């Protein structure tokens, strides 16, 4: 499991987020999961912006040009949703089951 630290650097009051990538996103990013520490009060949107800032495929997939769905602790979450400490954040393309 990869361990990244995002800017701004996590503080003592940072929250830990376990991120899961699914389907096309997992394949293109070349990563199934990772754990990050982000500032308290970070939203899904701010985390996505931080991930997109990694550039290249991260920017292409998460920078807003493609649809990405988010779920926090296995519940669909809006972009404004605040990440709780220890959250499981899943990021995935629009679903295509059934």
């Amino acid at each position: 499991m990869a361990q990244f630290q995002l800017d701004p650097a996590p503080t003592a009051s940072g929250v830990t987020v376990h991120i899961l990538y699914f389907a096309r996103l997992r394949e293109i990013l070349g990563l199934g999961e990772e754990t990050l520490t982000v500032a308290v009060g970070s939203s899904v949107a701010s985390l996505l912006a931080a991930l997109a800032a990694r550039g290249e495929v991260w920017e292409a997939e998460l920078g807003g040009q493609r649809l990405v769905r988010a779920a926090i602790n296995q519940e669909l979450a809006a972009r404004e949703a605040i990440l709780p400490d220890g959250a499981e954040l899943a990021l995935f393309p629009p679903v295509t089951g059934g």
Partner: protein
Amino acid sequence: MARIAIRVQEHDFDVGAEYALLAGIAEVGAIAAFVGQVRELPGGGLSALTLEHYPGMTEKMLARIADAACERWPLDAVTVIHRFGRLEPCARIVLVLVASAHRHAAFEACEYVMDYLKTEAPFWKKESAFGKDSWVEAHASDEAARERWHAS
């Protein structure tokens, strides 16, 4: 209380047996069913679909959709079974069974469950055809199908 059964599994399911589990409820007058299966491409050439899902969230989301259907219509039973893994042409993917006293409730709830499942349950299909793999894109028509349940 409606009987709700949710299963997410790799192995196949038996449509007749699942139907039979609901057929013995005395208050039931109508059972609507839907089976989705792997459809061959118009000119042939499909090797398989591979279905990925999000274990844990999938079951929760399917249960929530079934619960919502039970709140909206007077239902006696709802069964939702969805497979994952590699599925060849004609393989079954999904089964939704709905039992109710009346046929319109059964039909509508069955279609409602499918419309929400298609747009909210975390499954993704990868298509293998002509030696190439590609992820299936979501259809705007599926979103539209779900949205009509908000309007009515």
